[in-house]
Every structure is written in structure tokens, then in C-alpha cells.
């Protein structure tokens, strides 16, 4: 052995230092731990349904009931227009997409606090946990999406004023973007909640408020044109509107709007992951 060998980092499998750079993300490790991600998804999926009678139908019940309530309150009582689309379909499209985003955000935002026990005892890439949460929400979305499709077919058969079109092909991209947005913001919040526990109280409430800043219970056409640019700073708005346009043919969507939304998503995801990776190294000392 010679000493120059020992000082060369490449001779070692792993070098642990006090401070590593902001961009020491080690995302490649996630791939090595892909089996863990799959098993975490399985764990949560299995434990949700164990000892429940209705199982996956719970996930259908919630959008169904919300749709009825929205139809009565916002459609019948408040009389908010829905761009000529049958009200139940309009609301359900919004609810299903929103649920996916909100679910991703909600479940990833308590990553550190909820997994304190495991994180304190063993190392694995921490991002595996929020990533698995996004995948679980994707599965939940799939269940709810089937329900939405059933509604869609029913109204199509009745000859309602809806026009599914080529934008449908964007669906996977929209889902990816919503997942990325939920994940990015979620891990960002989870990193901040270590320091500011107050934030976790705000998350649930904040998500509710956010829904009203998104075209879920009203179409985007109801937003005054001169305010739309500010409205579109909400990256979810463009996604929901595109989704509705693709399946129902109502509303308007332009590429630049999606572009802004995608830009914000990439930014949030990037910042989220960088801060998350930074915090994960020492968070055990602060909880």
C-alpha cells in the first residue's frame, strides 16, 4: 500500500465528509434502491386495504360524493357556469385531477416527520419515500380515473356537448408534471417543517385554499382576462384546464400557458430536491 493511494478518493467506495456541495444529490442511488420504492408502494397499498370492507371503492366514493356536493352547491345554488359541459362531468374531471396533485403534495410534505423512526436508524436514499408516495397516488388516481371515464362514456352516449380530442395524448405528460410538482413542493415543505413545525398545520388548510385558486369548481373562462397572467402563475391551473380541454373539449389552453406551468414545475422540483438532499444529512440532529 502506498500513501498516495490512501488519499485518493476514487480508491474508496464511499467518502463521508462534513460538508458536501449543494449539488451532491446522488440521484443514481435511487435506481439501486428501486426495489425498495416498489416495496414501499406495496406496503402502503396493502395496509390501506387490509381490514377494510370496501377496499379500493373508498377511493371512488370520495370523488363521487364531492361531485354530488359540488353539483348542488356550485352548480345549482351558486349557478357558476361550466362552459356548457354537464356539471357532474365538469366537477369530476377537476376533482379527480386535483385529488392526484393534492394527494402527492399532502403525502410527501411530512416525509421527514413521519419517517423519523426509520431515518434515524438506517441509511437509504430518503427520496425513495416521497417518490413511493407519488406512485401510490398515481394508483389512487387510476382508480378514480376509471370512474371519470365511466361518467364520460355515459354522457357521450347521451349525446352531451363534450368533445374529447387529440390533447388526450398529453395525459401521461400532465400526470408526470403534476406528480413532479407535488413531489417538488412536498419535499420542500417537508424540509422546512423540520425547522418550522407550524408549517405542517398550514399544509392541509393551504391545499384547500389552493383548490379555490385552481379551476376546479369554475372554468378558467370565468377569470377576468386581465388577471389571467397572474392566475397562471398557479402551475396547477394550466394542467387542470388542459386536462379538461382534452377530455371534455371545453375551455381554452395555449402552449405558452403550459410552458409557464412546466417552467415553474421544473424550478420547484429542482429547488425541492436540492434542499431536501441538504437537509437529509443532518436532520436527525434537529428532530
Amino acid at each position: 500500500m502506498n500513501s498516495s493511494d490512501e488519499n485518493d478518493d476514487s480508491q474508496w467506495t464511499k467518502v463521508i465528509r462534513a460538508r458536501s456541495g449543494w449539488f451532491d444529490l446522488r440521484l443514481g442511488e435511487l435506481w439501486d434502491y428501486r426495489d425498495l420504492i416498489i416495496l414501499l408502494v406495496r406496503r402502503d397499498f396493502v395496509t390501506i386495504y387490509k381490514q377494510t370492507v370496501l377496499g379500493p371503492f373508498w377511493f371512488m366514493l370520495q370523488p363521487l360524493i364531492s361531485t354530488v356536493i359540488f353539483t348542488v352547491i356550485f352548480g345549482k345554488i351558486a349557478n357558476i357556469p361550466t362552459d356548457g359541459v354537464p356539471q357532474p362531468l365538469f366537477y369530476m374531471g377537476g376533482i379527480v385531477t386535483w385529488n392526484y396533485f393534492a394527494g402527492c403534495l399532502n403525502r410527501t410534505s411530512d416525509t421527514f416527520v413521519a419517517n423519523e423512526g426509520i431515518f434515524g436508524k438506517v441509511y437509504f436514499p430518503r427520496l425513495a419515500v416521497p417518490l413511493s408516495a407519488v406512485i401510490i397516488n398515481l394508483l389512487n388516481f387510476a382508480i378514480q380515473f376509471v370512474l371519470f371515464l365511466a361518467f364520460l362514456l355515459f354522457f357521450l352516449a347521451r349525446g352531451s356537448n363534450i368533445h374529447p380530442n387529440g390533447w388526450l395524448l398529453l395525459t401521461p405528460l400532465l400526470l408526470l408534471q403534476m406528480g413532479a410538482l407535488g413531489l417538488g413542493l412536498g419535499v420542500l415543505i417537508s424540509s422546512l417543517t423540520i425547522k418550522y413545525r407550524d408549517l405542517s398545520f398550514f399544509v392541509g388548510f393551504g391545499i384547500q385554499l389552493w383548490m379555490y385558486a385552481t379551476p376546479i369548481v369554475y372554468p378558467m373562462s370565468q377569470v377576468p382576462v386581465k388577471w389571467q397572467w397572474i392566475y397562471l402563475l398557479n402551475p396547477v391551473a394550466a394542467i387542470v384546464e388542459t386536462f379538461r380541454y382534452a377530455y371534455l373539449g371545453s375551455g381554452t389552453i395555449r402552449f405558452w400557458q403550459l410552458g409557464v406551468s412546466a417552467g415553474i414545475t421544473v424550478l420547484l422540483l429542482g429547488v425541492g430536491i436540492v434542499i431536501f438532499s441538504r437537509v437529509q444529512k443532518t436532520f436527525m440532529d434537529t428532530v
Partner: protein
Amino acid sequence: MSDIVIKVEELTKEYRLGTISHGTLKEDLQSWWARLRGKEDPNSLVSHPSSLPRRQGLNPHFLALDKVSFEIKRGEAVGIIGRNGAGKSTLLKILSEVTAPSGGTVKIRGRVASLLEVGTGFHPELTGRENIYLNGTILGMKRAEIQRKFDEIVAFAEIDQFIDTPVKRYSSGMYVRLAFAVAAHLDPEILIVDEVLSVGDASFQKKCLGKMEDVSKGEGRTVLFVSHNLTAIQNFCTTTMYLQGGKLVAVGKTATIVERYLGDCLSSTALVWEGNHEPNEYLTITRAKIVKARSESDEIYINEEFRIDITVEVVKQVADIAFEIFVKTLDGIVVFNSFTDCMNLGRGSSVASCHIPGNLLNNGHFTITVVISKNFSYWLVKIEDALAVDLLSCPEGTGWQGDCPGVVRPKLLWTV
């Protein structure tokens, strides 16, 4: 290729007591606003470099590890010993990347698996089978690897007929067996094990140690092992490191190091404890003390009664608490655990005394861990090895004066 698999240089871990993060946004904003106006931070513990800490005697920087350097060769079984708070667990946490060091470097060659706890990530609703896979992947195994070793794991844990039962229905023994079985079948080049063998029954502990021995001797892997069980360390480790107050004070052949450690322990009888412990909202133990029944000299003989006085200061009225002590030998074996009934305490100070009769313990060195538990379900305060006492063989003229084997030496009724 070099033989050194772990190289640690000047490793330091600093914990900041006091306020680094205030925990609430309001206080952080306050501090930030104050700094912005060039005023003194109202929430800072050490407000200016020149001024003194607000609370005297509280050092805001605490070094859990202080410039520790060592090298470990391939295939070595290394024991780490030291009193509580010496930095053993912190060292293992850094080596297993649970937390980052504040200074220094660690260089590692090969895959590391750490076992700081048995059954990390076990989910009570999942079956034994599902948990084997989940726990295995958390510890860094691939699914295919687990599949290959599945039967071996189940056989080691001796739970074949319960493999498809949710682990929440397992007895605690089964649970521990399963958890250790998974960890024991990891195939890392370096295995890091914290005090995990203190759980489970004796025969299983033996089996675990045997398995660890196979791993290190038979398969040429490196094992780092923290334990209070000196017998286990002596049987299993070739080399031992002795940590004291965050510093590495000695490394070398296990027998030599253990002897030195025991020597240090023996010379440090602690008849009074007056320190700080982790705070809680209800009470603090201000003092624990060993008091002789007859106080002519400091020595305590095995035939004499003595008592342990625990003084608490209650700041908030508290219900259903119990005082407890654990009396342990130097090897970390618990001789007995004794506790009061659940009681309520009002504000103010109280003293609980535990009377330990003469003719119970054997001569030798014992440590006493002081605990206050709540609802008999969790520990409000636990001061590990707060007190230490040396019991001497009977004074002249009152019986056999030599040593006797055993942990206890009760005086029993004999009829002939």
C-alpha cells in the same frame, strides 16, 4: 488493493445545545428582523461573542466525537466500548450515514450494512413474509437477493408456520428473531451492529453472536460491534476501541482494552449524581444518592443495608408516575429491576428512597440506572448508570471473607 476498509480521520461531531433553530417561524422572524436592524438577537443564547451565555454552566457546543481517528482492516471484528455518552452510538450513526459529521472524513471500502435497531421499518399490518422483503430492501438488499435467502431467513428465525401472519400478532420474541434473521443474512462487506442483542432470550442471543462470528471469521467480513455486554465483546472481537467523552482513548487487543476499561470503571464509584438529563414537561431529577444505613465510613459491605435516594423537582403536577431502578453488573447484566406503584406528584420537591437490604448482592461493582416512568408505559426520565457502587466482602469475623461466584449472595435459611 489496500487492506484497510474503514479509515476515519479527525472525525468530529458537534451538537449545539441551546437555540440554533428556534422551532417556530415567529422566533426566527424575530431574530431575522433584529439582525436586519443591527440589534441584538432576542432569541440567541449567546447574544454577542463578548457576552456570556445566558444560562451559566451550559456549554452551547457539545462534542459527541472529538477528533477520532482510526483504521480498520478487512476481516477484523472490532468492539467499541465506553460508558454511556462516550460517543459510541454517534460514531456508528456517522459510519452508517444516518447523520453527517461536523468535521473530519470517513472513507469506506465496500458495502456497509448497519443494524442500529432490530426490525427497522417493520410494519405491524404486514405479514412476516412481506416484512422480510420490506426490511431487507430498507437495509439495502435487492429483491432477488432476498428471494434467494428467504428460506434460510425463515429457518433462522424459526417462524415457518407464522410466515403469512401479520407481525402484529407475533410474540415479541418472534418479532425480534425475525428481525435479526433478516439483518443476519445481509451480505455486506462491513457490518455495523449496535447494542441490539440485548433483546431476545439468551439462547437466541447466543445464536446471533454465533452468526456474527461466522460472518467475521468464516466469511472474512468486517464487523463493528457496540455493546455493554463485555463478555460478548471478549468472545467475539479481536480488536477493541475504547471511547471516553467523545475521544478515542485506546485501541488494541480486546483483552488489554477491556481490562483498562474495567479498571477505569472500578475506580469511579459514583455515590452521588447531580447532573443534567433530557428535559420533559413535568419534572427533573436533581439528585440521586447512595446512602449507607450506618454511616461510619464510606465503604459498603455486602451484609449492610443501603438506600438510594432520588430527589425530584416537579414543575407541573403529574399523574401515574413510578420510580424505578435497574441494578446492573459491569458486564451490563441487569441483576434486578425494582419500582414503586404508580403515584401522583404535586409541584415541589420530593424524595423517593429505595432500600436495598444487606445479604442480597454479591461483592463487586454495580451500576444503578435511575428511571421515572409514566403509566408504566414509557420512560419520562432515564439516567443510565447514574450511580456506581462497590460492595465489599464481609468485614472480619462475620462469615466467609473470600469471594463467591454469582451475581447475588443471598443469605438463605439452611436446615440440617
